[in-house]
């Protein structure tokens, strides 16, 4: 006679994901259980051991650890673990230890995986609560992410604007203005497909800059190297095509007819949506403790983008928008706690977040610009508390305190707008390399919350006066060449220029950071309004201040170095390790080594050129 497991049944129906199951399934679960007792401070699961059961905590408490031994999670009654290993290869990814005497219920793998496959609610509940990383492991069995599965036509939201080739340049410009479009397809009489395209840029470069008459025919300035895509191709393919051909606009066809145009900006905007689920949950959390629980989601969306071959610009933009949302939510919560601010203020982000190229390993850099009506004796207490709340919150959410003290908690960086103007004026007009060494980061500045125009004013000040102050630019340039890339790789070592060999290389310090610094100097020198390194490079290439071909080379080198770093971090996260900026040559493929060596060389040449341009010896 089979026995009724009433006690188990009553227990299971109190907890997710089991309470998502229909009663008769729950009875099946209850009669599949075995039980075991583990004393406090014992190992339950070791890394990489085989695992055959889902472990459910009936009573007691356990710690789930990273492979490195760092704490990943604590679980108590009703909690469960081992699901990652079960859904993956039957090997434990996260070791588990008991903190207290613990009674475990074991649910066999076959029952668990069947429930996971058959009940969407159940599977979803398993994935919620910091278990999202499971998604990558089972990715192969699940519908792919938007960027891979969504088709190009979903990006087309308006009718195509076209003009006949016989019209004048002026008519074309008027049409673009009226229709508020940045590109125009050029048609030729009866032919159903466009013969060319013009963009805002063409009007500037091929008409105004060269003094061409706007009465000439539009076909004299159009680009005729059109590359068509089909409406049902993947957005991802379009993105790759754009990168390969360096064309930023692609006409889209459906059944041989023109359907529309997609631009690079459409693709980038589309991808940043994928991090929207993280962003939207950030705004649903009501305390630092709750926000903290999203750390794993952030890592998850990072790894997912990497797995799906997003480029560094997309990933950087997504991570930055997530980081911005954390700050915004923390400020909302701080204001709810402290009351409305006594004077208007602007909370600003500095560095990678302001450049829209944030990595997963990043510390917080921020500051406060206060209204000029600010009086320290009356108002500073409020802003001290506000800054403390936000910086503590950011630290808890995975953005550690800035070791250089560039945070709103530092009185120096919590000042009224007039004081900030003084800072920047001083930096730019009476510069020394030493003084600028630590204020580099302030030249990448973006408003996060509050009076956005405070930040705009400072950015305008920078754009206006930086190009006019050669000593400032020379000081920035001198700092930008302090950190150099290595020569390349030898066996499993990093080769330095002086012949020294190291076991690892910090890809940020020796790769992305010097390149970003270098691009910033050039961007400041031409008064570029851009902050993103790729966008700055576009301005620099257009301004023609680099030797021919060097600009695009730098762009490719940046993408490559950034992606090696990003991929390495994603690998670390997926393996349950703590991501950092270090790369060991033995982790690189031959191809990566070779291309990295080339990228380092491009950076090295670019630094040489910067020295030459600013007479640095």
């Amino acid at each position, binding site marked *: *006679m*089979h*026995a*009724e*497991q*009433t*006690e*188990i049944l009553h227990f299971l129906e109190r907890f997710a994901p089991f309470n998502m199951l229909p009663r008769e399934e729950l009875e099946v679960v209850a*009669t*599949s*259980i*075995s*039980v*075991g*007792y*583990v*004393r406090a401070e014992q190992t339950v699961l070791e890394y990489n051991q085989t695992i055959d059961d889902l472990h459910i905590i*009936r*009573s*007691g408490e356990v710690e789930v650890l990273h492979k490195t031994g760092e704490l990943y999670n604590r679980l108590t*009654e009703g909690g469960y673990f081992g699901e990652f290993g079960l859904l993956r290869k039957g090997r434990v990814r996260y070791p588990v230890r008991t903190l*207290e*005497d613990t*009674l475990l219920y*074991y649910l*066999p793998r076959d029952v668990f995986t069947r429930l996971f496959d058959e009940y969407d609610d159940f599977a979803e509940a398993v994935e919620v609560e910091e278990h999202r990383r499971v998604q990558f492991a089972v990715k192969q069995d699940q519908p792919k992410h938007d960027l891979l599965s969504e088709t190009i036509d979903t990006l087309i939201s308006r009718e195509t604007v076209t003009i006949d080739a016989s019209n004048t340049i002026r008519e074309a410009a008027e049409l673009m203005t009226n229709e508020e479009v940045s590109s125009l397809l050029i048609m030729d009489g009866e032919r159903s497909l466009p013969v060319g395209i013009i963009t805002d840029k063409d009007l500037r470069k091929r008409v105004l800059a060269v003094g061409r008459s706007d009465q000439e025919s539009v076909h004299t300035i159009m680009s005729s190297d059109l590359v068509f895509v089909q409406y049902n191709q993947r957005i991802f393919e379009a993105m790759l095509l754009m990168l390969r051909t360096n064309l930023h606009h692609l006409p889209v066809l459906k059944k041989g007819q023109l359907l529309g145009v997609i631009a690079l900006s459409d693709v980038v905007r589309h991808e940043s949506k994928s991090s929207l689920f993280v962003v939207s949950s950030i705004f649903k959390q009501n305390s630092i403790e709750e926000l903290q629980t999203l750390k794993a989601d952030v890592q998850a969306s990072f790894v997912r983008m990497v797995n799906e071959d997003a480029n560094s610009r997309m990933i950087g933009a997504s991570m930055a928008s997530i980081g911005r949302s954390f700050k915004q939510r923390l400020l909302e919560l701080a204001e709810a706690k402290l009351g409305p601010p006594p004077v208007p203020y602007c909370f600003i982000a500095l560095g990678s977040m302001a450049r829209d190229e944030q990595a997963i390993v990043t510390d917080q850099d921020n500051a406060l610009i206060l209204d000029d009506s600010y009086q320290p004796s009356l108002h500073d207490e409020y802003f001290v508390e506000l800054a403390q709340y936000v910086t503590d919150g950011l630290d808890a959410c995975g953005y550690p305190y800035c070791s250089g003290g560039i945070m709103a908690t530092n009185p120096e960086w919590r000042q009224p707008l007039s004081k900030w103007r003084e800072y920047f004026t001083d930096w730019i007009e009476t510069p020394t390399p030493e003084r600028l060494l630590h204020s580099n980061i302030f030249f990448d500045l973006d408003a996060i919350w509050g009076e956005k125009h405070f930040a705009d004013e400072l950015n305008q000040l920078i754009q206006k006066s930086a190009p006019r102050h050669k000593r400032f630019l020379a000081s920035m340039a001198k700092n930008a060449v302090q950190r150099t890339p290595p020569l390349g790789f030898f066996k499993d070592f990093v080769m330095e220029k002086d012949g020294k060999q190291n076991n690892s290389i910090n890809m940020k310090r020796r790769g992305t950071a010097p390149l970003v610094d270098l691009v910033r100097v050039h961007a400041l020198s031409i008064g570029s309004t851009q902050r993103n390194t790729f966008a700055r490079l576009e301005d620099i290439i257009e301004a023609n201040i680099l030797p021919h071909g060097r600009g695009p080379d730098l762009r490719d080198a940046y993408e490559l170095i950034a992606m090696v770093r990003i991929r390495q971090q994603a690998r670390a996260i997926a393996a349950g390790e703590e991501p950092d900026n270090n790369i060991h040559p033995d982790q690189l493929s031959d191809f990566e080594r070779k291309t990295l060596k080339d990228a380092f060389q491009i950076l090295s040449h670019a630094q040489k050129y910067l020295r030459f341009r600013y007479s640095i010896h």
Partner: protein
Amino acid sequence: MPLNWTERYQHLAASARDSRLREFYQAGMVAANTPIAEAPLIAVDFETTGMDAQTHGILSIAMIPMTLQRIELHAAKQWIVRPHDPLTESSVVIHGITHGDIAQAADITDYLEEILKFAAGRTWVVHYRGIERPFLQQTLLNRIGESIEFPVIDTMQIEAQLRRKPLTAWQRLLQRTNLKQYPQPSIRLGDSRQRYRLPYYPPHDALTDTLACAELLQAQIAHHYSPDTPIGQLWY
């Protein structure tokens, strides 16, 4: 009770008249020096109509095969049987087994083969060894004219040894003459489990009680013995 159950089983296998008993013994029993972690065990709980094996009867039998590592709850079995003793009102209240259930239940001899096959080769785990073995022995004597023997681990006895210090003659005298009381920690199932932070289970459901006892043994060994403890140190 003999400590060498291996030999005792061999002897009993040769002398048992009932074929079901013979098979039960032929399954054998581990040696006394077998580490507890390697011994096949079975947690057992009987519900009875009273405490006296001579006059009361078995109402239900719950069994869960187990080892020191795992309690195989999914393989648990439970039988409701008709006692040879008229059912008293009080036991009905406690066990939630009604006269209707009993009326439909078969005699224990109908299940005997199944029960003995299920328990064969395993050492029984019970909380208070004064019930299950004596009741089964008496019942079999009455029905098939032959008793039964098997080793039993008693979690209540383990708890008593761990928690209760024997009183000196002088203390016993003081206590007996009501001059002084020496309260001892409770060794009842629920109270014992609490000491090991095992969860509270509502009492008097046969299967839940069996599970409660099985978990208690695992906890006792984890805290006070070792997986290598010879089973001979624990059984009776």
